[in-house]
């Protein structure tokens, strides 16, 4: 197993991913991103040293349970986190420009025009007391010299493009008068309105009917390919990630536990956490009424950093070493694809097999988790 070159605190500086070669042309580069929330109860390391690069026209998937830090990472990349009680570290290059130190005033020209966000629930994310057309016109006029009537015309074109019939009528309606799928299409039109280089989609289909999900995802992919946008797709749906992303990062407790080309990560998961997530997902190949495996325990609250691996208390392979030492993100054996894992005993390696065997024989993991 190859060891990755290391950066601050011995963590990775993403030198292995293939897109690094074209770093200058990447739509979005994130280096050593850290986010701490300072609360009266203590500091919370919500995003722990995350680095990635998003190529033009590529999609990066970020998966993980609720509370794993996915949305915080996205907001932090966009510099949308509140300033108070939050500390961030690391560098963000958006279209080659360093935006890491920028405050609200300077970020305004990037927001909406270079990086745009599609929120999870369009019903709460669109202003309920503003006509949907006006909400798009507002953004267009903020970033372009178009007149109001030109902006309205562009809004109608955008609404047509995202599949909304009779845009003149729809743009005069309020969010609550549209269906869920229609609202999400409006939000996508809004996000696309100023031709951003990067689109961050935070669970864009979670609030939607399953039958609408595929339509919205297909629309997003079509627009992304047509416009050569980079897209960050945050989801907890592995099926969605499998179908719509090029690269995948699996997050747990604010850290990346596994990353690499989506196909490879899902076909040969290396992290016990990724494996557990896959086992918990339903598969069409399984017979009906197959019982899904559940993951025992809860995600860590991340208050106060533990010495060992964050997943150890819930991991079937946890050994004594996992409790006292934190693993680094290292490349797997076929690491030339950029497939990395943060585990001492990865799935599919002799070491991982041995660790599981030891735990099964003694009936419990080093963290005290009972194995059946």
């Amino acid at each position, binding site marked *: 197993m190859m060891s990755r070159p290391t950066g601050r605190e011995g963590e990775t500086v993403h030198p292995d991913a293939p897109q690094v070669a074209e770093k200058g042309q990447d739509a979005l580069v994130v280096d050593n991103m850290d986010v701490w929330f300072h609360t009266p109860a203590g500091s919370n390391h919500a995003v722990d040293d995350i680095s990635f690069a998003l190529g033009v026209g590529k999609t990066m998937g970020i998966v993980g349970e609720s509370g794993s830090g996915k949305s915080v990472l996205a907001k932090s990349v*966009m510099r*949308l986190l509140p300033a108070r009680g939050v500390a961030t570290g690391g560098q963000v290059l958006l279209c080659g420009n360093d935006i890491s130190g920028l405050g*609200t005033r300077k*970020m*305004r*020209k*990037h*927001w*909406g*025009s270079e990086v*745009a*966000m599609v*929120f999870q*629930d369009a019903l*709460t*994310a*669109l*202003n*309920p*007391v*503003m006509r949907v057309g006006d909400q798009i016109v*507002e*953004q267009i006029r*903020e*970033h372009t010299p178009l007149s109001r009537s030109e902006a309205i015309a562009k809004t109608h074109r955008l609404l047509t493009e995202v599949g909304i019939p009779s845009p003149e009528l729809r743009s005069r309606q*309020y969010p*609550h*008068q549209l269906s869920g799928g229609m609202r999400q299409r409006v*939000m996508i039109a*809004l996000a696309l309105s100023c031709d951003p280089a990067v689109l961050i989609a935070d669970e864009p289909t979670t609030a939607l009917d399953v039958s609408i999900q595929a339509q919205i995802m297909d629309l997003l992919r079509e627009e992304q390919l047509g416009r050569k946008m980079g897209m960050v797709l945050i989801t907890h749906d592995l099926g969605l990630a499998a179908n719509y992303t090029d690269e995948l990062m699996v997050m747990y407790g604010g850290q990346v536990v596994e990353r690499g080309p989506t196909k490879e990560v899902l076909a040969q998961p290396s992290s016990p956490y990724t494996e557990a997530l896959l086992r918990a997902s339903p598969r069409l190949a399984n017979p009906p009424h197959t019982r899904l495996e559940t993951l025992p325990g809860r995600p860590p609250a991340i208050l106060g950093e533990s010495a060992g691996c964050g997943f150890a208390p819930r991991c079937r392979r946890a050994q004594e070493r996992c409790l006292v030492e934190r693993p680094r993100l290292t490349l797997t054996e076929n690491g030339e694809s950029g497939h990395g894992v943060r585990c001492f005993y990865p799935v599919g390696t002799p070491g991982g097999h041995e660790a599981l065997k030891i735990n099964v024989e003694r009936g419990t993991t080093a963290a005290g988790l009972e194995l059946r």
Partner: protein
Amino acid sequence: MLSFAAERLLRYGVVLFLVTFCGSMLLSLVPGSAALAVLGSDASPEAIADFNTKYGLNHALPVRYWMWLRGVFEGNLGESINNGQPVSKLLGERLPVTLELAILAIFVALLIAVPLALASAYRAGGIFDRIVQSLTSGLIAIPEIAMALFLVLIFAVKLNLFPVTGWVPFSEDPVQNLRFAVLPVAVLALPAAAVFLRVLRADVITTLQSDYIALARAKGISTPRILFKHALRASSYSLLTIGGLRLAYLIGGTVVVEVIFAIPGVGSALVSSIQGKDLIVLQGIVVVIASAYLVINFVIDMAYRFLDPRVEH
């Protein structure tokens, strides 16, 4: 829509009937009598009997109410027991004065409260917010009468900027009218502004947490525009209710201010008619106050529909 309005009108009619009927019953409990108030305590029993007959005061209460009500339906609110002046004429002179005070006060209060509330809420817990919060606590706690005397002492007596007391009708001299209105309006507006500010600040803080504010931010919209265009409208429902109630309250209740500043409005008429046991005038004022509440309620209901498109009939 028509049936909606008709239903409202019917309901308001019932409310007005109940308010005036109960009002007349309660007002008759006021000790003393109009005859004694007008004729003096040494009036002869014959004079008192004549007086009571003249104004129908010797009839039973419900009968008197019925007589008054019949008059109302004929467009006649009756005549003052104290001086024979028609009540409608008296209200016609007094109501515009009080309306001017009340509307100006609410307008000024909103002008102060809205920008301060938005600024406080934007940096809730910050130094500006804490200063504003202390000021509003003070303004709410100071009694109207103390504030009135304090403002008169400083701005009228010491600085001589505004007249101490008195009133010039707007129709006579608009500029003088506004000069006379400044201090009374300030006394009415400042506590109202403090209440409005608190209510609006709390709602804006909640609104600023919502996803659509985060989206507005992510669109690159400027902070003032986010506050005024996105946050204010969605945070204004409680303010609308409180503001409307305050306006109605002022229309019936600028008593202290009108007495201190010697302003000939509804409030001072209320005081003098109570002193004179002038039940007919009082009844007229009750009608005005109750109507003000009803009209303002109706306007608020309509305004909700305008402010929040999600409200359906």
